[in-house]
């Protein structure tokens, strides 16, 4: 009976076009939209070199140290040597971010203030400070030059060491996709609702017919839930393959843990739907409405619409993150991708297992009865 029902439930689920759209196609469409919307988001954080012009004149020729210094900062600047007139033109045409003139002091000409202009200003200040220091040493204590003090001035010692807490480079975009996967897991709730409705005599005519058959209701229900979870896992597998293979989203290389997250996430979604389906007695439309409403709210709080929301929730009301299955699933993927330890990951998975148990217990409590007060 278990396998017989399982096979037919798989057929029913796969042939339900509306269900397949929401649980399978919709997340893929959203992923494509996210990819289109966020494809330039990462590149905005990349550093772009500053275009700067240096006016060629006699003063510049007399300061070869400056030419040497600015040429040496090729990881910061793209330098163009030109005349004052051309420099003005380039600045007006926004082809450079500013130009430097020795006249006789160093001066910077810009047409707006911003990060790039601040970088040029910082470089000039640093150069002037170093030049002034060297000049002072030469005039006041020329013998110090023999002890190699110049090398000490021109080089810097870092007393702080930057250690990355993550094994991957921070990428704000991946969180959107993690939240999308988490939402897809919870969309397994559609499958849960469908299975509960199909088995409850007070929710559907086919449910009444199944209740009248000489079969153990719990066996039928468990095989139906297994069919729902199977479909959900398949859909997730295809979504993950699409995200990794087509959109190039990184999930790190901990496949076993990712699979565990998907299985636990799917079970959370399916049992969540079953719970909603069993406790709401009205028509199927209301159940679906509640399911979509709650899933979208949880997705929002988990940062699917704006990454800042996740941060705000984490700092202002962290309890909400622990009570939000979508946030927990997102967090699981996030910790796998970024962190070297699994402490937070296991915490998330355990909390999700708690939710699965809670949803299952409520569902069982409602559907275990064999007679109904009304139909």
């Amino acid at each position, binding site marked *: 009976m278990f396998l017989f029902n399982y096979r*037919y439930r798989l057929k029913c689920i796969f042939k339900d076009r509306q269900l397949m759209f929401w649980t399978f196609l919709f997340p893929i469409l959203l992923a494509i939209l996210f990819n289109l919307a966020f494809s330039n988001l990462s590149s905005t954080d990349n550093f772009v070199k500053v275009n700067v012009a240096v006016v060629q004149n006699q003063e510049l020729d007399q300061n070869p140290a400056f030419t040497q210094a600015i040429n040496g900062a090729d990881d910061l600047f793209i330098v163009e040597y030109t005349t004052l007139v051309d420099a003005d033109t380039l600045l007006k045409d926004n082809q450079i971010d500013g130009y430097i003139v020795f006249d006789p002091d160093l001066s910077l000409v810009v047409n707006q203030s911003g990060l790039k202009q601040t970088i040029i200003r910082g470089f000039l200040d640093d150069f002037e400070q170093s030049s002034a220091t060297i000049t002072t040493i030469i005039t006041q204590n020329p013998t110090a030059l023999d002890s190699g003090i110049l090398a000490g001035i021109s080089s810097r010692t870092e007393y702080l060491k930057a250690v990355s807490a993550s094994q991957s480079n921070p990428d704000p975009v991946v969180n959107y996709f993690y939240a999308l996967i988490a939402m897809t897991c919870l969309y397994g709730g559609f499958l849960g609702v469908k299975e509960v409705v199909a088995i409850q005599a007070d929710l559907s*005519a086919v449910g009444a*017919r199944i*209740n*009248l*058959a000489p*079969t153990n209701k719990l066996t039928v229900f468990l095989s139906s839930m297994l069919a729902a979870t199977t479909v959900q896992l398949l859909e997730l597998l295809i979504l993950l393959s699409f995200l990794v293979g087509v959109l190039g989203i990184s999930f790190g290389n901990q496949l076993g843990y990712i699979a565990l997250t998907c299985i636990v996430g799917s079970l959370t979604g399916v049992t969540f739907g079953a719970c909603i389906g069993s406790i709401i007695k009205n028509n199927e439309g209301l159940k679906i409405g509640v399911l979509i409403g709650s899933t979208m709210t949880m997705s929002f709080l988990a940062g699917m619409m704006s990454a800042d929301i996740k941060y705000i929730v984490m700092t202002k009301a962290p309890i909400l993150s622990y009570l939000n299955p979508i946030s927990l699933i997102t967090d699981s993927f996030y910790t796998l991708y970024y962190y070297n330890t699994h402490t937070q990951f296991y915490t998330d998975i355990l909390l999700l297992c708690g939710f699965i148990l809670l949803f299952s217990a409520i569902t069982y409590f409602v559907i275990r009865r064999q*007679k109904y*007060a009304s139909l």
Partner: protein
Amino acid sequence: MVINVKNLVKRYGDLIALDHFNLAVQEGEVLGLLGPNGSGKTTAINCILSLLKYDKGTIDIFDQPMSPDAYHLKRDIGIVMQNVAVFDELTVYENIDYFCGLYISDKQTRKKLVAEAIDFVGLNDFKKFYPKKLSGGLLRRLNIACGIAHKPKLIILDEPTVAVDPQSRNNILEGIQKLNQQGATIIYTSHYMEEVEQIASRIAIMDKGKIIAMGTNEELKKMIKSGEHINLELLNPEDLDLAGISALPHIISAELRDHQLVIKSERGKNNLIPILDTLKAEQIAIGKIYSEPPTLNDVFLEITGKELRD
């Protein structure tokens, strides 16, 4: 005894849906359960099938107490529900196979039974059709096939012809009679008295949660005073002395509806002759005359004071 229900009481809050309902169904009979909407027919069926909780009473099926986990009893029961209970995602064949599979685990046996059920309801040309592609009548036939494919000894049909065209209705009724001829005991609920009269060997009339009359078609009609309806078309009704007609022996009531004189008379011979004599004496010209026996609606009307139909 196939079904034996004693003193069944079912309440929905203050509303009494079944009020000390009693029912005994013998093997091989077709029992028509007749009653207006809301009379408690479906509630009674759902209680008998252990789907609904009830407040009081006992229910035995095949002389054994019925309960939700009485699988050995459920195995021999087939139910055709009022609402079509099939999966939209499965074809005609798959639907029948699925519901038959809830009773029959052996694949070969099931295959044979499903083929027989499809043949029985005449859906051979629609095996691969999905329910949404079927007409209302075909859908009802599929609903019946899903309920009877496992060859049950007791078949309960709860208003299986609601919203079905006359041709499909006749097919369904003929099918039910065939099932009975094959040995199945049948309970057929309806609020269509013609259907019940056509197929039932015994009829129970329900109202307000209890059976108010029970017997064969003829037995029920004998329970009431009204034995005949006489209709006369009068060409000059303005000259009629209605009181004179009403005063004749064996006449229960007489009323004039436009040109029609409608008379209800007691059961008996020669009721028409005194009426014709009276009309002749009053020089009233007569058009068509016809007489018909009382219907189940008359039975219901006389017992409850209201029409059977909604």
